């Protein structure tokens, strides 16, 4: 994968002025202006104080005098920061350039909303704005059909609540229990659960709770211990035509559900993912098998010949 600076931003918003085209400050400005710094300059060895002075100078030019060239300069100066933050999310199934675009929107919002009187650095204020915008993009992008934000958030909350309630109750919770724990109505819970089927949890790097937060472990982090079991199971399995279309984890989950007779909650515990995710994977697997072999004209899967896949 190429480095962040090798990616050019496809820039429909004209966020990144080509080098040399951004209007230079006037001679009067230049006298007032500190040496060019910023995050890029830091990397090039220029002083942090100079960078901060230039930030403050440009922010004042923009906010007090409406100097849009100063704004453009700030955007250009901070695009490497955007790229750096976007790069952390680049392995989660979205194009790096798209993430830079989204992050740049967060940067612009930070510059536009920056409050000079607060005395904080632009970097401090911009970073959570950029990361927040990228996370929001992942959250919205993860839904294959448009689902209202409130339902998405309830869905994410339910995911966590289910994971908490199963060990506490030692069984799968009811809709009423979920509604009570989520301070929602049973109807809202049912609707949120239904919409979870519209969520694309494809990337193993994606956060299991769907938020995509950098601090969250990816699904792949939960799976290492199961790889051996997948392999053993596969060794003992005769594959029907559609079965090969599924990945190891999907085959393993179908095996546990339909040949071992485990419930979704039990599978979730064993595989280390949420019950809702197990539900999505089972439905998606059956859908893919159906597409592959036709509408149940053939058996979906041949039974493993061994007794125990482990």
């Amino acid at each position: 994968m190429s480095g962040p600076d090798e990616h050019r931003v496809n820039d429909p918003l004209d966020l990144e002025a080509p080098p040399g085209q951004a209007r230079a400050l006037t001679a009067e400005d230049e006298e007032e202006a500190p040496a060019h710094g910023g995050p890029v300059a830091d990397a090039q060895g220029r002083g942090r104080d100079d960078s901060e002075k230039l930030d403050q100078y440009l922010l004042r030019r923009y906010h007090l005098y409406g100097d849009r060239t100063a704004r453009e300069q700030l955007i250009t100066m901070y695009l490497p920061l955007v790229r750096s933050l976007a790069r952390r999310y680049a392995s989660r199934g979205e194009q790096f350039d798209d993430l830079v675009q989204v992050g740049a929107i967060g940067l612009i919002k930070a510059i536009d909303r920056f409050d000079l009187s607060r005395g904080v650095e632009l970097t401090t204020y911009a970073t959570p704005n950029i990361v927040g915008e990228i996370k929001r993009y992942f959250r919205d992008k993860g839904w294959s059909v448009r689902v209202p934000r409130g339902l998405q958030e309830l869905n994410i909350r339910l995911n966590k609540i289910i994971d908490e309630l199963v060990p506490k109750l030692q069984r799968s919770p009811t809709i009423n229990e979920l509604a009570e724990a989520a301070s929602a109505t049973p109807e809202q819970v049912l609707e949120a659960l239904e919409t979870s089927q519209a969520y694309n949890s494809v990337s193993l790097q994606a956060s299991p709770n769907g938020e995509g937060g950098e601090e969250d472990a990816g699904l792949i982090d939960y799976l290492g211990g199961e790889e051996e079991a997948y392999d053993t199971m596969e060794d003992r399995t005769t594959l029907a035509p559609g079965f090969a279309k599924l990945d190891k984890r999907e085959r393993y989950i179908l095996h546990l559900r339909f040949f071992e007779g485990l419930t979704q909650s039990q599978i979730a515990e064993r595989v280390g993912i949420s019950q809702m995710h197990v539900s999505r994977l089972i439905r998606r697997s059956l859908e893919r098998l159906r597409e592959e072999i036709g509408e149940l004209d053939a058996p979906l899967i041949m039974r493993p010949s061994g007794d125990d896949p482990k």
Partner: protein
Amino acid sequence: MAERIDLEVPATLNALSTVRMVLGGIGARLDFSLDDLEDIYLATDELLRTALVADAPDRLSVEVLLEGGLLRFTAGTFKSAKLRADVTMHAEDCLDLCMLLRRTVDDVVLEDDDGAYRIVLVKRRKGGPA
């Protein structure tokens, strides 16, 4: 006291989500666990999807009966011999519709009706609170 709900929906995949929502509401009232509810969703979804292709009806008629901790789901009438075979015949060592239904509901019954038949799925509450 038993309570019965009758539904007639277009024979399309989109209509299946309506059936699911109704089942979800009933399952919530019966205090079904999420696992049980997912089972009944999966069973009815796979059954009706197969029926749509095998039987090609214009409309889908569904009846849901609640009694105690039991949900009785009836679909039909159907005439397709293939659908009947898919529901009742299990090929050994295969995950087919018959096995999927066995794994997700407690009983599968075919009720004959003047040359046609209805398919009944029975799900008992077992995973919820005592």
